């Protein structure tokens, strides 16, 4: 009997080979990503630990599915590469099999939904404690402005119409709560926040949507003109961090770097006590 000619000899071998190489390279680089330094930035907040855990779990699950599916694809392409004279199997369906691979992904995804939902509630649906250290950050093209509420712990009223010259945030000096506010025009100040204590950041914008992003804190929140958004977290490491803008805001979007310093609360209070207030700066 003449040998059956295999049609597609090259494709039926090369494609599986490429898929196998893909699986190996992907698996190795992802598994060692942390070791190579291709990883999330070193963690510096409390809630970030749970985010990182969920991230790694998701990575493992999707990684295993990736390996499984690409490998099966490679295997089937190789194993069933064409052969003249051989007939394919007439196999139109198998309800039990289909139910299996409906239920298993549904179960896995439901588990991810439940754990994601719980973590999200902790991060976004739990209000900050009343004694959280509060600070207001304003985005504008292309720098960050900052305001602290001062000794009274209350931010004075603002009005966009009042923005001018020496009042870049539009603070309403008629509001008594504004007298002790400490503010820095965009690009002129540093954000000082205490370590180990809840910090709540109120985000505002003067012109377009910006986004307050500090990678090490696992924090990102859009700053939207016309409204106040809020994010809170507990910094766990002292040091100097960078704020990057994470929502396209124009030509200088990539230059919108801010500086954020985490230090002992006493040091923060000491620094604040030395700053000029609205009463000093705005006539």
């Amino acid at each position, binding site marked *: 009997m003449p040998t059956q000619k295999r049609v597609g000899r090259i494709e039926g071998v090369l494609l599986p080979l490429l898929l196998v190489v893909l699986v190996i390279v992907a698996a190795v680089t992802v598994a060692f990503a942390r070791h190579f330094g291709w990883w999330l930035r070193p963690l510096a907040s409390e809630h970030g630990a749970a985010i990182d855990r969920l991230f790694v779990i998701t990575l493992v699950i999707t990684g295993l599915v990736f390996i499984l599916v690409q490998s099966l694809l490679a295997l089937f392409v190789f194993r069933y590469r064409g052969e003249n004279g051989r007939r394919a199997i007439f196999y139109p369906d198998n309800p039990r099999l289909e139910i299996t691979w409906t239920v298993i992904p549904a179960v896995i995804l439901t588990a991810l939904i439940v754990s994601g939902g719980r973590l999200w509630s902790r991060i*976004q649906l739990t209000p900050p404690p009343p004694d959280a250290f509060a600070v207001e950050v304003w985005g504008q093209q292309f720098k960050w402005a900052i305001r602290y509420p001062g000794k009274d712990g209350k931010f004075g009223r603002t009005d966009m119409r009042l923005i001018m010259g020496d009042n870049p945030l539009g603070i309403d000096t008629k509001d008594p709560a504004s007298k002790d506010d400490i503010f820095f025009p965009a690009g002129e100040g540093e954000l000082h926040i205490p370590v180990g204590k809840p910090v709540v950041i109120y985000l505002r914008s003067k012109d377009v949507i910006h986004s307050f992003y500090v990678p090490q804190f696992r924090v990102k929140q859009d700053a939207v003109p016309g409204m106040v958004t809020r994010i809170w977290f507990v910094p766990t490491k002292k040091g100097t961090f960078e704020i990057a803008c994470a929502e396209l805001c124009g030509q200088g979007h990539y230059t919108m770097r801010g500086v954020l310093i985490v230090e002992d609360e006493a040091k923060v209070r000491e620094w604040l006590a030395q700053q000029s207030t609205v009463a000093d700066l705005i006539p």
Partner: protein
Amino acid sequence: MAHEVHAYSEVHHEPKSFWTKYIFSQDAKIIGIQYLITAFVMGFIAMVLSWLMRLQLGFPGKAFPWLEKLLPNAAQGGILNQDFYLATVTMHGTIMIFFFITAAGTGGFSNFLIPLQIGARDMAFPFVNMLSYWVYLAACIVLVASFFVPGGPAGGGWTMYPPLSSTKEALMGSGWGATLWLIAMALFIVSTTMGSLNYITTVLNLRTRGMTMGRLPLTVWALFITAILGLLSFPVLFAAAVMLLLDRHLGTSFFTPYLVVSDKHIPHEGGNPILWQHLFWFLAHPEVYIAILPSMGITSEVLATNARKPIFGYRMMVASIAAIAFLSFIVWGHHMFVSGMNPMLGTAFMTTTLLIAVPSAIKTFNWLTTLWGGNLRFTTAMLFAIGFVSTFVTGGLTGIFLGNPPIDIQLHDTYFVVAHFHFVMGVSAVFGLFAGVYHWFPKMFGRMINETLGKLHFWLTFIGVYFVFFPMHYLGFLGVPRRYYAFDQYEFIPQALVHNINVVISIAAFLVGAAQLLFVLNFLWSVFKGPKADRNPWKANTLEWQAPSPPPHGNWGDELPVVYRWPYDYSVPGAPEDFIPQTVPPTPARVRGDGGDGGQQR
């Protein structure tokens, strides 16, 4: 009283002149080819824009004198400037998603395949069909014109969030460029609406005798459901575009609150930028499924035909397309987890988003099982269809990270997102389009496209795209933000590592781009000089392969085909050949209770 029955050819006047045959044609086949060619030209333009982007990202600060000669206003000193960089980002995305992928998938393949595969002579509304193409072309022209207006093209990203996109003081491209973008999108939406009306009506009303909904090829199911998706979702973007035009030109405040841009007060009252995001994403999320569903349908068809096996799980495949379409309407908020919208919405959208992975998983396993036990024939189309499965899985899995809000906090607006959507849309959906072009080329043009060049195109592209987009996942892990002109301002970004990754990506992108020339040359040469094609070179079952290559006006001559079976009777045990076209009547039943030949007549 008997009346004379006229042959179709006597009653229907064939177009006679060059203009009515090839230019202002009402024949869906010609309109489909017009859409495909225009869409691929637009895709090529968008690809060139991506090369400019990659030039900047791979070689920041390096002056290229030829660049300055080419783009004197955009590349002073031989370096692309920031405004034009944002314009390339915006226009690349807009053109690729709407003017290339959507137009080719829905306009191109719906028109060419639906009437043929259901046994109809043409679409239900041929004049409106023709109009839909010309309105699409007008939209293309308006969009390309925006490159030549003062201030340049829109630069607010394809998502065009206001106030950036509503305020010319905030960005140069938010002047004329943004206005033309909005007008082009409005025209595009008019075009797709006309198309959707045609596709839905035709599938429901013009199926030939015996072609029940349960015997439709999966391409038709996919294109039909895509049309419904489009009909229901595009009008919302149309409304949003009108509102944004009003904010920009008539001083309304739908999306724009009181602004102070660089010390200039721009008084508005009460507008909310988040409203735009809701309206935009209400369309734009279904839109990405509009982009991928045609390719899913094509992949099912190409895999089954070339594996010589029925598509596995036809009913579940249809149900999962419907489930994806339904769910796609209620996931849009996953683009807005950190937007400032109520976080409770985050919980709701997370649930629906992670669930939409289930029907996608079903489809993936069904495609795999279609290959199992098959007798695989590796045409170029088949290679791209298999490539679709591989890249769709890669891209789809990263969606599971992004759909989970706590994880999305870290990955939102980073290169992880860029990797995700390129794998599913930029690679996977486009692979489906390539598979479709290679597979139906003989039917469209009556000639065979060169398989050797086609396969070379596949290998270079498949290998190349993994080099372009896989490393972007690592940039995402590192937290590198997207839409950045350069990365040198931040210490948290490891400079040497990120730079090297970007160089690899850029070079791979240029090579993949070059490989596409193989496709263009092959296509053009084969249209005129390719060997003549038979009626049914792939020995496939669906109706279009019963018509001549290419089919005449009216598709079927005097007699419409009659359908007796579903499209997937491949390798039926006992049948003389390994395929049984849909028009073959069942042989008389013997002992078994089936159609006699073991095939399916459901």
